[in-house]
């Protein structure tokens, strides 16, 4: 398969692993930001190719995991309204709110539909003018352009029965929050390649300079990730802290200008609460004033901020890279994908789910 197999070449992987081993002279902790990268690391056992001195910790880049519980509750509340068709990406359906998830609301009669693109939800609204169609717009910068396009089209074409429940989040503010946390041990980042495909990487340059951390924009295939690790270590060992682009086949410094323009038209920057992490200033997108009428919160009432139920779940520590899933006492015993205690075990991109899926109930990764 072209554009895939060349990035899964075992010989290239061995060469990079050898280069990494030669480069690392002391212990370093690196964080891969995106859940997709975490999955590739576990799926291919890339951590086993690294020398013991190099440790990868897993970042908060799982949109499903960080969507606040009160938004899940609101989604379920809206979906239960008889006139509503509630459209969502598939992996939001199993995420637990305070009481149940969208999948169980569906089984009790709510019209919940999986869509593959937000524009499909606009098409559903167009085809069902007598119903209210609500799309659950979540994700990082990666999904923002397509979600913005849905709102843009609905407004342009006067599709009055379409609205979006928006809980978008942004990567750079989360990276800052992690770096400012007491006891931070992250020495370098593998930044999320697809986020940077949209946004470019200029906004990461002040972070690299201010916190003295190398940031390598990295892709998602095994060779991408190993190369990202290598470039990051090379900077660390030579005392540099810059933004470097490993994923040049997809990412330009300025990003995708057209997508950014659309995002600026439809969204504005808002404070966000991150599930299991907490409030982060200016860390999300909400709909701009011109799109207020397409905001599901305008139509169905504002999301009420609630308290997260406390449990033994360590997903907050996992999302901040402070613990590995296998270090959680509940992992694989009291917490499994069948009976999850927290979102990181639910989502297909969650770190706990990745450990369970690829390492089994013992999760005995390094």
């Amino acid at each position, binding site marked *: 398969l072209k554009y895939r197999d060349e990035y899964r070449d075992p010989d290239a992987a061995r060469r990079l692993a050898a280069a990494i081993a030669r480069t690392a002279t002391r212990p370093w902790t690196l964080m891969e930001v995106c859940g997709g990268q975490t999955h590739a690391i576990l*799926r291919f056992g*890339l951590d086993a190719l690294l020398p013991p001195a190099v440790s990868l910790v897993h970042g908060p880049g799982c949109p499903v995991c960080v969507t606040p519980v009160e938004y899940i509750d609101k989604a379920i509340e809206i979906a239960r309204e008889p006139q509503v068709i509630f459209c969502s990406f*598939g992996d939001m*359906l199993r995420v637990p709110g305070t009481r149940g998830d969208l*999948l169980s609301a569906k089984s009790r009669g709510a019209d919940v539909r999986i869509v593959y693109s937000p524009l499909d939800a606009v098409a559903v609204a167009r085809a069902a003018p007598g119903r209210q169609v609500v799309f659950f717009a979540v994700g990082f910068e990666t999904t923002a352009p397509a979600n913005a396009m849905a709102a843009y089209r609905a407004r342009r074409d006067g599709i009055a029965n379409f609205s979006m429940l928006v809980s978008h989040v942004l990567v750079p503010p989360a990276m800052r929050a992690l770096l400012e946390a007491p006891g931070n041990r992250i020495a370098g980042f593998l930044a999320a390649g697809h986020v940077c495909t949209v946004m470019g990487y200029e906004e990461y340059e002040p972070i690299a300079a201010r916190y003295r951390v190398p940031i390598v924009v990295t892709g998602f295939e*095994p060779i991408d990730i190993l190369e990202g690790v290598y470039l990051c270590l090379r900077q660390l060992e030579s005392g540099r802290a810059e933004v470097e682009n490993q994923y040049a086949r997809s990412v330009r410094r300025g990003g995708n200008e057209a997508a950014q323009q659309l995002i600026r038209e439809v969204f504005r920057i808002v404070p966000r609460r991150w599930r299991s992490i907490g409030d982060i200033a200016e860390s999300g997108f909400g709909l701009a004033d011109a799109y207020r009428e397409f905001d599901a919160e305008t139509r169905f009432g504002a999301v009420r901020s609630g308290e997260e139920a406390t449990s033994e779940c360590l997903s907050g520590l996992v999302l901040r890279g402070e613990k590995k899933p296998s270090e959680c006492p509940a992992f694989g015993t009291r917490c499994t994908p069948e009976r999850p205690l927290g979102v990181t075990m639910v989502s*297909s991109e969650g770190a706990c789910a990745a450990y369970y899926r690829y*390492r*089994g109930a013992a999760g005995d990764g390094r």
Partner: protein
Amino acid sequence: MTDGNGLALSCPAPAGQADTVQLAHGGGGRAMARLLDTIIRPGFADAEIERRHDGAVLAVDRHIAFTTDSYVVRPLVFPGGDIGTLAVNGTVNDLAMCGARPLCLSVGFILEEGLPIDLLRRIVASMRTAATAAGVRLVTGDTKVVDHGKADGMFVNTAGIGSIVASAPIGPEMVRPGDAVVLSGDIGRHGIAVMAAREGFGFETAIESDCAPVAAPVLALLDVGIEVHCLRDLTRGGLASAAVEIAEASGLAIALDEAAIAVPDEVAAACELLGLDPLHVANEGRFIAFVRGEDADRTVAALRRYPVAAAAAKIGNVRAGPKGQVSCRGPFGAARAIDMLSGEQLPRIC
């Protein structure tokens, strides 16, 4: 049917005959008799069905395998097959997995009011074709009609019997450490074909379901005297579920080699886009066979003589432990754990 182009392709309809299924078609009266007489009995064309008795009477002289399965696929027609081919081949394959030569099937239809009669006729015809291809008879049946909205067009149940050919028991309890795991072909075609037809992804895929009977290659293994320990067809849940079921039931470990498992490019590409693992994607014409390690090459060679198993390959082996575990060695040498899906397969966000 007259919708669409206004052209009636069927015979001129006598008074009261509709072009869609009506509740009366299940009511036990004239309408039902007409449906059975014009569509179903002629479609299946079997002497036992033509007897119009309450059941089929069959002569059986040895151990038989007996199985049943219900089919609820949406859409009813998909690239490479339809619910009818699925219902025949699925039960034929379950019988083959018992080491049996499939003989006869029953067919139970639950039809939704409003189902186009032409679609029913088409599905009955493809059941007949599939039965002929698999060498089984459709000998008895039942038809019910439910209100509009109570079924996805139609549901089909088939039950079947087959005569046991294998001289030794076949099942998970017969699997031994050192056994080879042989896969009969590439994986994932059915699941991706149906998903693409159902969801309308907006990307072109030419992939067709692998729906096919696999009894012939299975019987060939037994004919040439290969000691088959266990057989399992890969259906929902894919290769992963089949392997995990056998590992758990046998209390042994199964080690697979990813490089040996053939995945068609179109399936691999669709899985990459949707965030699915091909090992979890459904198949309808593939199976795994557990044979003695030294019989692996003979097994592969015997299977490859049949078009449906032309890409058969050894994909792994059985180990004593860890008990109930399935692992898969990837391109970089590290093995990952393989488990069943914990819920429905849901495409990821990005």
